[in-house]
Each structure stands twice: as C-alpha cells, then as structure tokens.
C-alpha cells in the first residue's frame, strides 16, 4: 500500500467537466466513495487504477447509467446528476463501454450509423472507415460476428460520428493489436487537436502515458492522486506502487 495521499480538491472554474464528491451504487453495494476530479477543455485525462478500483463505475456514473449516484457532476456549467442518460448524451458526452456494446441484430454499417448525430463537427462515415480499414470490408456482416478487436474499433468509431466533443473511453485498446493501438493513439492525438476532450480509462500504462495530459489515480472508489504528464518521470516509483506494476 501507499501512504495516505492527500485528497484532490481542484478548484472549479475553467473545468469543462467538474466531478465533486461523486458516490455511486450498484443496487445496495456502495462502490464510489466521493470521486473528485476536473477535466479542462481539450484535455486528455486518464483514470488509472487497479482492477475493481471503480474506474468504469465512475464513467457510468457520469453518463447516468448507474442505478444510483449522488454528488455533483457539472458539464459546461450544467449539473448532470438527476438527468437521464439520454439527456447527458444530448448535452454532448459520448461513451464507449469496456464491453464494447456491439449490437448483434444490426449490421456493422448499422452499428456504425446508429448513434444519432448530436451536433455538427463529428467525423464522417468515411473518416471512421479510413481510421479503421478493417471495418470497411465487413460493413454488411452482423455486428457481433466481428473479431474482438474489430468490435472495439467499431465501438470507438461510432461515437466519433456523433459530433460529441467530450468522450468517455473505457479501455479502448483492450484486445487490440499493437499496430492498431498505435493507430488509436494517433487518432486520439488528432482528436485532441480538433478540440475533443477525452477521459480515458486505461490499463495499458504506456499507451496512457503516450496520449494523456494528466492522470488521476483511482483506488477503492476515490481519486487518491493526480499526476501530470510532465511529472510522470519523477513519479514512476509512486505510480508503480499504486498500480502494482
């Protein structure tokens, strides 16, 4: 274990997303115990942590698909707690779940075109197929007939279309070949340049380090530390302790 780290309480204001004292439950079990963090516009922020730390749950709580949550999640000044998931999506947040969520009764193409366009400025269908050429060949197959990695590509690809500028990506590189991981890294950097804001949950630390501006460390349903990319080298020791690398 690590020595007790100070709780992070960043001040609000410039943040695009400000999460304060977020608690979350699965039915009866209390999983998030007061999450605090901020994401500034145009930033890539990762949530790091061991298995079961509560990273996925945090994303779900932001997205409004957790059975119960309390606290505050402000997105561009607007409170999201209490809103249904669809309203949160309409507000401009897009979510890519860790289990991918490809629909088996839809073709690859239909899967890709499914999420409605929230506003202008999303990638076009061809942009997405340009990033993930694998998909182009298989547009007419049943969604879940794709290989694990192809499904992952599809899951990322489809939310890029919506025009949402704020992405929640849960382990987007899981199960992807190294070439593709590199490609996704490049894509994320491009997106960042285009002004996207991204919250990334990652196990692949190298990947995370290659794209992110800042890292939050999650443990037992709390954010216990914040490390900026610049400080990374100085903090490897600490991170290894957190993550058990």
């Amino acid at each position, binding site marked *: 274990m690590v020595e007790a780290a100070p709780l992070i309480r960043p001040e609000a204001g410039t943040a695009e997303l400000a999460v304060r004292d977020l608690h979350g439950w699965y039915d009866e079990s209390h999983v998030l115990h007061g999450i605090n963090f901020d994401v500034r516009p145009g930033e890539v922020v990762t949530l790091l942590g061991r298995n*079961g730390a509560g990273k996925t749950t945090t994303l779900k709580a932001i997205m409004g698909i957790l059975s119960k949550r309390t606290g505050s999640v402000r997105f561009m000044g607007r409170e999201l707690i209490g809103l249904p998931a669809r309203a949160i999506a309409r507000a401009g947040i897009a979510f890519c779940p860790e*289990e991918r969520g490809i629909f088996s009764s839809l073709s690859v193409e239909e899967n890709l075109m499914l999420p409605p366009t929230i506003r202008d400025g999303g990638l076009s269908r061809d942009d997405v197929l340009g990033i993930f050429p694998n998909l182009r060949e298989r547009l007419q*197959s049943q969604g879940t007939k794709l*290989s*694990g990695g192809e499904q*992952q590509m599809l899951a990322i690809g489809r939310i890029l279309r919506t025009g949402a500028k704020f992405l929640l990506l849960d382990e987007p590189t899981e199960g992807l070949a*190294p070439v593709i991981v590199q490609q996704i890294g490049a894509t994320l950097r491009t997106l960042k340049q285009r002004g996207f804001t991204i919250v990334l949950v990652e196990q692949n630390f190298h990947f995370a380090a290659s794209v992110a501006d800042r890292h939050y460390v999650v443990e037992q349903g709390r954010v216990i530390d914040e490390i900026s990319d610049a400080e990374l080298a100085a903090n490897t020791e600490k991170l290894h302790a957190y993550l058990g690398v």
Partner: protein
Amino acid sequence: MSATGDFILKAERLTKRFGGFAAVSNVDLAVERGTIHALIGPNGAGKTTCFNLLTKFLQPSDGAIFFNGRDITRMPPADIARLGLVRSFQISAVFPRLSALENVRIALQRQRGDSFDFWRSEKALNRFDGKAMAGLDEVGLAEFAATPAGELSYGRKRALEIATTLALDPEMLLLDEPMAGMAQEDVSRISALIARIAENRTILMVEHNLSVVADLSDRITVLARGQVLAEGSYEVVSRDPRVVEAYIGVGHG
C-alpha cells in the same frame, strides 16, 4: 527449447468459411507437448476462430484436428473438454450467481465424471473445497471466495475464469487473451501463474500484450488474414518485417 517432434495438438489445413469469407484458411498448426505456444496476429486475423475450431465451438469447413494423435475433427465440444483440451473465453465467462468458490468447484467436480448422481448429497462436494480455495488463492481471489462472481470487477472475473479453467487440470489449455483488461499487477501475477502451470501442461494462447508473449512463449505462430504469416521464436518472429508491418507496428520497442 528444441523441437522433439512430440506434438500434442496438430491441425492440418484448417479452414473456416463464413459464407464466402474465409476467416481461417489452410492453417497448419502443431503445438509441442509441454510448451507455451502463442498465436498472435492483427485483429480479425482468425485467432479466436482457430480456437473455436480447435475446441469445436465451430465446425471446420475443411481440414483435420488431432489431439494426442487422435482425430477429434468431428467430436462435440463437451467431449473435447473431457479429453483434456480446455479453453477460456475472450469475453469473460463466469457463473454470475455462484460464488467464486462454487465457480471453481464446478470445474473440480468435473473430475468425478458427469454427476448425474441426483440421489447423493452435495456434501460429497466438500472434499473439493481445499483445492478450490487453493485455486482461488493462486489468482489472488481468496478473499472473494464467498462473493457471487457477477459482482466481481472485470479483471477479477478474468482471474476467476482462469482459476476455473485450471481447476479442470487439463492436459492442454487454450487461453484467449488472458491478460486483456487486467491491471498491471495482475498481469505479472497471471504471467507467473501461467509459467508455473506450464511446467506440466501445454498451453496455446492468444495474446496482444507483446511483453507477455515475449516472456512466456516458447514458440509463436503469427496469423494474418486467416493464414499463417510466420512462425518461430519471439526473436525470429518479431524481427520478421512482415510481422512488424502487419502486427507489431514500427512504434513499438
């Protein structure tokens, strides 16, 4: 390790077509007894499909499969598991409403043969508890023995799945991306575990985590577009330019 020619699993001209699309075509694969053999390749290369063919979750369109010299090409999946060829799933598969302990015990129970003994008390199963706990301990889940598997986090489900698979004590294990979604600490732990269990078993695994592949595997087969692209040790394969281009990418150390 040098080839002894004792192949536990052999596939010849293995082919699977989905409609007009050949997901796997003419793959020859030979896994030597007692080794860790890795199957890598870009996404959609046909690795999982190969697994499905080898364990008969899919029926090959063409080709033959031999396990311990025995032709298993037409055998149903459950029988293959009984012969000692067992797989794990890429997307994790646990018994969500059973406790972690019960998950492992179900696998241990298999050793009794098919338990159609509905007249006997389930207390007969208590004798597996020690082994089941030990199995959970090996993957770091001892403290979750009583937790329903459905409530475990993703990574822990994966760990549980491995513990369950190991409990079958199979002669040969097929692991589909065992490290996917695992935290670093678990990766090291599970790597060590795989290395340990490989001492008296054969393992065929699909894995995208190259450092794990490099550390563990004795031999590697690279698939691309359903065909074998290269085969050999990590040193050989990782320097093959075709593999670098199709799979590893230039950015990777």
